[in-house]
């Protein structure tokens, strides 16, 4: 008896939960309203069956509960009833399947006029490629991939010369125009998911997969990887900005073509030397860092990382948080580097400075830290030397007190929260793993053993 009442309560509760739930599909931002319609149909059919069959069961439990003086009916089968139920079920199934297949037929049929955009996934970030003026993407291959050519562009393919490379986690798309997203992975499986678009697809190394959609709502949408891709899976975040055509074109024109990135001259260390004089005041003539001035060691750090940070300071993506006291100092300093070439030159000069490990100043339990470093090592390398392909700077032999400060900044939301800080978001998610100061010190103490 109790069980019947509980069943009825669960049925009513489930229906109420469904009706009142604040958690439901996000407002759609693409043309795939038909997908939402098939979901509604499925809800109606399954909802009716759920309520009807379970209520019938609850009623049967009440009505036919054990009584000493009664016997159950003996009815081995009832062909007519069974066929009726089979028939009704089939009708319900067809009612769900037919619209489903109809919509799927649209999914596999990409509009002819949809331009292509490529999303490239790798552990654990996104980048994108537009075909440029010729509308054709150049060929790519894993064997061309290098730090200079992260997209793996075929240098001999003329179609690739004008491809526009977006080395950023943020993709922009024009509103109201169909687009065919080509999906490519450099390493493992990933999945391109924007909840508001409804459609998603895996990125499979060795294949190019696709989805197509027409963005219908302007805004910035989270792009999540939804196929398990390793330790950093949960931190593989990008975003898609849907905007008017003009804004989109302006954004696109700010990015270099493949021809431009390959023609880019390397930084000139000699030209960088005088520029470094301003830096040397704090960071030291050899780039060895000055703890008293809160200036970290620079020598031995990847030039690509230094360049990115200098640009962040210039753009206001770093050093703008109220509590980032020492970061603020860097802002006017970075501003003295007038253009990208100056940044390249100074980074090239720093690269020539001798890399002597900074003295260890942080005390902690290195063997505890070793366990925690497993996660860090996935990007920064087991040896802590940093991996450019992962956008992960070197840690070993760098100023340990600076690592502590920065980890705390990430934890407290001082760093890694600015929307333009592309890869800081990941570090903010990762630094959250370190529960307290002791954990931070242990970790840094372990990193100190890696020099």
């Amino acid at each position, binding site marked *: *008896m109790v*069980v019947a009442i*509980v069943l009825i309560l*669960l049925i009513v509760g*489930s229906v109420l*939960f469904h009706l009142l739930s604040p*958690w*439901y599909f996000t407002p759609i931002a693409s043309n795939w309203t038909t997908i939402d319609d098939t*979901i509604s149909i*499925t809800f109606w059919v*399954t909802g009716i069956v759920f309520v009807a069959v*379970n209520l019938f069961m609850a009623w*049967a*439990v009440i009505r*036919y*509960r*054990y*009584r000493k003086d*009664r*016997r159950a*009916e*003996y009815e*081995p*089968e*009832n062909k007519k009833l*069974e066929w009726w139920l089979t028939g009704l079920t089939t009708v319900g*199934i067809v009612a*769900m*399947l037919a619209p*489903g*297949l109809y919509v*799927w*037929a649209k*999914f596999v049929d990409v509009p002819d006029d949809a331009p292509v955009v490529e999303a490239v996934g790798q*552990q654990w970030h996104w980048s994108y490629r537009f075909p440029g003026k010729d509308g054709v993407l150049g060929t790519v291959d*894993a064997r061309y991939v290098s730090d200079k050519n992260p997209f793996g562009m075929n240098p001999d393919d003329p179609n690739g010369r004008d491809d526009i490379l977006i080395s950023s986690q943020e993709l922009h798309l024009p509103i109201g125009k169909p687009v065919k997203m080509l*999906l490519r992975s450099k*390493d*493992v*499986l990933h999945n391109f998911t924007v*909840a508001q678009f*409804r*459609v*998603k697809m895996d990125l*499979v*190394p060795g294949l190019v997969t696709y989805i197509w959609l027409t963005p219908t709502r302007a805004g910035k949408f989270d792009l999540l990887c939804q*196929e*398990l891709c*390793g*330790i950093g*899976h*949960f931190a593989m975040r990008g975003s898609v900005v849907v905007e008017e055509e003009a804004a989109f074109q302006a954004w696109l024109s700010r990015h270099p073509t493949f021809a431009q990135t390959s023609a880019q001259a390397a930084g000139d260390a000699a030209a960088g030397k005088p520029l470094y004089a301003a830096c040397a005041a704090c960071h030291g003539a050899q780039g060895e860092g000055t703890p008293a001035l809160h200036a970290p060691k620079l020598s031995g750090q990847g030039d690509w990382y230094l360049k990115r940070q200098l640009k962040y300071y210039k753009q206001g993506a770093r050093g703008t948080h109220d509590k980032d006291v020492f970061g603020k100092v860097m802002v006017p300093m970075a501003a003295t580097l007038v253009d990208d070439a100056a940044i390249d030159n100074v980074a090239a000069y720093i690269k020539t400075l001798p890399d002597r490990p900074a003295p260890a100043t942080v005390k902690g339990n290195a063997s505890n830290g070793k366990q*925690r470093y*497993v*996660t860090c090592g*996935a990007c920064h390398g087991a040896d802590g030397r940093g991996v450019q*392909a*992962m956008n992960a700077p070197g840690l070993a032999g760098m100023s340990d007190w600076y690592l502590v400060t920065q980890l705390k900044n990430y934890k407290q939301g001082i760093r890694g929260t600015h929307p333009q800080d592309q890869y800081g978001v990941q570090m903010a*998610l*990762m630094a959250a793993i370190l529960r307290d100061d002791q954990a931070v010190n242990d970790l840094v103490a372990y990193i100190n053993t890696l020099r």
Partner: protein
Amino acid sequence: MSYVAHDASAFAPPAEVREVELYHPKTWLGKYVFSQDAKVIAIQYAITAISIGVVALVFSWLIRLQLGFPNTFSFIDPSNYLQFVTQHGMIMVIYLLTALFLGAFGNYLIPLMIGARDMVFPYVNMLSYWVYLVAVLLLVASFFVPGGATGAGWTLYPPQAILQGTPGESWGIILMLVSLAVFIIGFTMGGLNYVVTVLQARTRGMTLMRLPLTVWGIFMATILALLAFPALFVSAIMMILDRTLGTSFFMPAIVSMGQKLEYAGGSPVLFQHLFWFFGHPEVYIVALPAFGIVSDLLSVHARKNIFGYRMMVWAIVAIGGLSFIVWAHHMYVSGMNPYFGFFFATTTLIIAVPTAIKVYNWVLTLWRGNIHLNVPMLFAIGFIFTFINGGLTGLFLGNVTVDVPLSDTMFVVAHFHMVMAIAPVLAVFGAIYHWYPKITGRMLDDTLGKVHFWFTFVGSYAIYYPMHYLGFLGVPRRYYAIGGTDFIPESVQSMNAGITIAALIVGAAQMVFFYNLVRSYFKGKPSGGNPWEATTLEWQTPHTPPTHGNFGRELPVVYRWAYDFSVPGAPQDFIPQNVPPPEAATGARDRA
């Protein structure tokens, strides 16, 4: 007389089964450790499977603690979080449920229910258990090797399963794959036994269409497993070679962490096809025995014949057959040719028809019954409710268009836990409360059983029903932390905390069950041979617990189907299968 069973040809042909020559153990070791008695092997399987299952249960708590209270527990980092997720899934699906349903219930119930003295190949049957134990030990060993167990997800998808960036990519994955291969070899030994025993060793009069549905469920599940596990075996071998000898079966050209690897040309999707060719039937390997068991529990405790027996048998067969042509519905967004979606959505939704028939027939068995609401019946009702929920959400995921937004979200997690975790586990509990008296001669405590039922049933619903709505929202599965996303509101965190609390309570409630198992073994009420007044042969044995050889000097002869409950005109509301129809009654043995 009117109470001749509905199928009952009174005809019972002479035995063509020769009396099996039984192995008689001479030593203590031979009797309790290296036993060839299916009943002992069943208990060994059950204890091993449940022990490793408890480990997986603890893993699920750790997963939930992280999701419910992120950044609180310093011992859960992204890397061992993935290891918990992976090992929880792998253990629960393969090492617990498959081993429990087929190894434990199969071994205990098949010979007793079909009227056989033992399995047909007892020695191979014993080997099967020991090989299974080796597989479990290999799995446990993988927790302790450098790098720890694999954290590639229970699907072990390449390339990431064997590349850096995934926990356990060095030794863990190799031990995992070897353990699976060993498991499959062990299972094949057992499976041969179950199939051949059902086909060859049925007692006189036990036609296939008189088999209890439990046996039908286990029989069909075994056939599925025998044909499906080779797919996992093949993919395990090929992945081991990819990992150790540098072949490129599944591995395309890859730039991993900035390094170009030696691999070229392989296909990760090929692995997924092989994996799911095993993986989908695996769902039914777990579900079909549960279907069978629940059918029998309902019939016995509602004192009514199972409704539409033939339909039920054919539904089991149809589901088994269809389960081999639906696998790619797990791969709608895997990057396979999208045109496959049409075919697999259609076959998947077709399989819903025989499944729905089973549900109707269970509910119609209750209808006009005389329902004892005892613990096994409660679990059976809980199973139906949970299974209906999980089955219906399966229609979302099977229909390709609806699947796309839900794929890889918490909706999937909620769905498969309802349909192939909670529902089968409720069936397992029901079965244990039902058959425990036969296995031990004592009843399990009723009050403790009810406490266990309510916490487990309502608690699980509280865990998984709301979880579907996280999926609708788009919360991804296998995420260590959600972090900041615009479309996921703060309230999701409160819901996750609530789910975690429910999960901890449900987990703790299982301790009541274990306590009941142990306490009742010593202090339970003596049950007698047939406490539920059931009709099937295992309840008609001369001794309880059944002794070696099961049926004493003479095997029972079967005269009727397994569901002669409340036959009009019969003196009692049940007629055991071995009671001859009245006109032949002169020759009938007394029932013990």
